[in-house]
């Protein structure tokens, strides 16, 4: 939500380096992405949602009754 720059910090001018919060945020984001990717890969990969479908040749799910 970008607002009018009325609350824009004036001390930005004197900060030639990347702020510490950005570095910390980048580090946390990288770790989170790594965990997220690992969770997906452990679960069968990003493209593998179809893998949960019954493989060809397996018994038809219609015979499994009214289970979840």
């Amino acid at each position, binding site marked *: 939500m970008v607002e009018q*720059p009325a609350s824009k*910090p004036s001390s930005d*001018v004197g900060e030639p380096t990347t702020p510490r919060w950005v570095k910390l945020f980048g580090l946390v984001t990288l770790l989170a992405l790594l965990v997220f990717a690992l969770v997906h890969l452990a679960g069968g990969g990003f493209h593998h949602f179809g893998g949960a479908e019954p493989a060809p040749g397996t018994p038809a799910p219609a015979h499994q009754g009214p289970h979840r």
Partner: protein
Amino acid sequence: MTLGPSLRKLFLTVHIATSVSWLGAVATFLVLAVAGLLGQVDARIRAAYLAMEVMTWWTIVPLSAASLFSGVFQSLGTPWGLLRHYWVLIKLLLTVFASLLLLLHTRPIGLVARAAQDSAVSLDLYRQPRMQLVVDAAAALLLLVVTTVLSVYKPRGLTSYGRRKQQAAASL
């Protein structure tokens, strides 16, 4: 390009409304995903996945697009800019990432919803994508909370592009 005050407020209103609605919709989606995964009553579980598919296409996808585009217009139309401040840039990247993630996951949502439509198909066969929907919805919710926090606190810090722009403006 700088918007006039009326147009700026209009874009800001649209952006806040769509962003907060997107967050709320994802929270609801997460509740349904958990209900679908842990529920005991078959009809309720199936209803949850059918509702999730409708929500995705008719609420979450349009809101994410509206939030992204209204945010871009809003930032370009004010002195904040799109690439000048770290918080705006990070928020843009997170929003784009969340939107892409959402589009990527319309497939498993459709897959599980189609299975839920057929009462003869056991949803136990879809345990993995159902679990994945919970994890991804939780991740998306966290991400949207972070973008909201960034919007409210607006932490300091100019990008190198922002510093160059500011120096150029100061030297005029």
